């Protein structure tokens, strides 16, 4: 068989195709889109190279293979099941012909990524495969599926996740930082916020201390990913992948690129704290991550595995095999 096919069984709205993002037409109102977690997106692409990934949200996903296919799955807290095998990502594995891979969210984490060897998503739209969930721009028929490469079945390989999702989220000054008095900026970085249930690929809303600006109404200007807008109610909205390119609330800060997944992978009602950093620290953190992604480390088991233990002959292990005992 020269080709194979994968398709998403019963796709839900949180499953989309994403590449690094759609650039070059933001000035015409075209949203950038792209992955919510660029680190896990890039890691999936490093484990199995593909022009774009399938992003999976809290609804999980079932992906069926016709022909054996090679995939990489990344995403914190998620589990991957194929047949009787259950794995925790990051993992590289094959889905045997006719089988279904199930991706299920765990108790933490919001977004998982699947890359498929040799996958053909069809023509890009304005140079990108990214889907804008808000407008449907670039959307593809996931249920109809995509052609991809047929491979030979191999044992799964597990890798270290190079990212720590816990801890405060580092921020840099935003274009309207001057509209927030110093005491407000300090308080913003010393008190906890909670993620409100009002969140999607466009943005995450925060609940917490009121972040007050001199004015909450500005003549709109451009918005980058991670920019934090503060409307009149003082409850910030972090603008994420599917954001509109322009907006009219003052922006106190921009989440450092290296810390964006930390926010994006947090769930509604979870706590989040912010801390100010400078451009140099942001650069160091970003480059360290890119290095870690470029050299994915095979996972070394640190925990006790009762299943393996049950299979080994403890006596033989201690005394050695007869042929070695002379």
């Amino acid at each position, binding site marked *: 068989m020269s080709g194979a096919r994968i398709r998403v069984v019963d796709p839900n709205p949180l499953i989309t195709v994403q590449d690094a993002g759609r650039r070059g037409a*933001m*000035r015409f*109102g075209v*949203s950038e889109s792209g992955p919510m977690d660029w680190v896990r997106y890039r890691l999936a692409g490093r484990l199995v190279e593909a022009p774009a990934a399938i992003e999976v949200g809290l609804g999980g996903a079932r992906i069926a293979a016709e022909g054996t296919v090679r995939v990489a799955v990344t995403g914190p807290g998620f589990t991957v099941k194929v047949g009787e095998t259950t794995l925790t990502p990051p993992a590289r594995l094959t889905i045997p012909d006719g089988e279904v891979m199930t991706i299920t969210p765990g108790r933490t984490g919001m977004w998982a990524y699947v890359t498929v060897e040799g996958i053909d998503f069809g023509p890009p739209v304005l140079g990108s495969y990214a889907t804008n969930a808000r407008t449907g721009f670039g959307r593809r028929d996931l249920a109809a599926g995509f052609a991809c490469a047929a491979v030979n079945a191999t044992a799964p390989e597990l890798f270290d996740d190079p990212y720590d999702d816990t801890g405060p989220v580092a921020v840099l000054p935003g274009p309207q930082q001057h509209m927030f008095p110093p005491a407000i900026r300090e308080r913003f970085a010393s008190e906890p916020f909670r993620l409100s249930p009002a969140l999607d690929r466009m943005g995450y809303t925060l609940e917490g201390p009121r972040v007050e600006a001199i004015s909450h109404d500005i003549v*709109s200007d451009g918005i*980058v990913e991670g920019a934090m807008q503060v409307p009149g109610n003082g409850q910030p909205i972090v603008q994420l992948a599917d954001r509109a390119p322009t907006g009219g609330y003052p922006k106190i800060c921009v989440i450092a690129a290296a810390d964006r997944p930390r926010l994006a992978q947090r769930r509604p009602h979870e706590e989040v704290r912010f801390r100010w950093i400078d451009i140099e620290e942001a650069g160091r953190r970003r480059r360290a991550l890119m290095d870690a992604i470029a050299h994915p480390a095979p996972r070394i088991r640190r925990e006790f595995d009762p299943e393996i233990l049950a299979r080994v002959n403890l006596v033989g292990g201690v005394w050695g095999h007869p042929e070695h005992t002379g």
Partner: protein
Amino acid sequence: MAWLDGATLRPSGEAAFVIEYGEEIDQTVGQRVAGLYAAISAAAPEGFVEAVPTFRSLLVLFDPDVTSKDAILAALPEESADAAAATTEWIVPACFDADVAEDLEEAARNLDLPPDTVRERLAASHYQIGMYGFAPGYAYMSGIDQSLTLPRRQKPRPPIPAGSIIMAAGMAVLCSVSMPTGWYVVGRTALTLFDPDRDPMVPFAVGDRLTFEPVSREELERLAREGNGLRRAS
């Protein structure tokens, strides 16, 4: 004159910055932003990603592992006197009849003006594309006669067709997508504002100016079938 004269540089994280010419809507500023957009896009070093012009500022995005704010600014040429020539002036046929300008009469009542006066002022205004946002090709315009300023309507209306003209808090908007709106629908054009397969994908650049030429409902329908009737002002 240098592009940065009178400008304020604002930070926007590690991969972007903003060149701001003012805090209010001003068509002279809009013109200068359009010129700056053209200059920075033409001269920018490798690592420049794109720039987003708005009513009063330019957001510049770059790859911080390839270039820097300083390198992009250093590559800017002097500001030339004919920077404004980078923009185009357009005439756009538009129908202001009641059946396609569904909220015009309600707007006129709320403004305490005869509906025909509202139509005349819509047609006499000199608009400028201030920015795109909300959706692809969704164009915010300055220059609407300020006597036509109204707050949002009490209730949003069901989706309006793409090509509609709406009045929004001292601005006018050309709608590229069918959508519900809480603002006043005061006219319709035969324009397809966004088409990813067309070059350019939108007919107007930020900074371009336009006026509406009133046409009948029949003429609007003919234009919708046979082309949008858009033309450059001589």
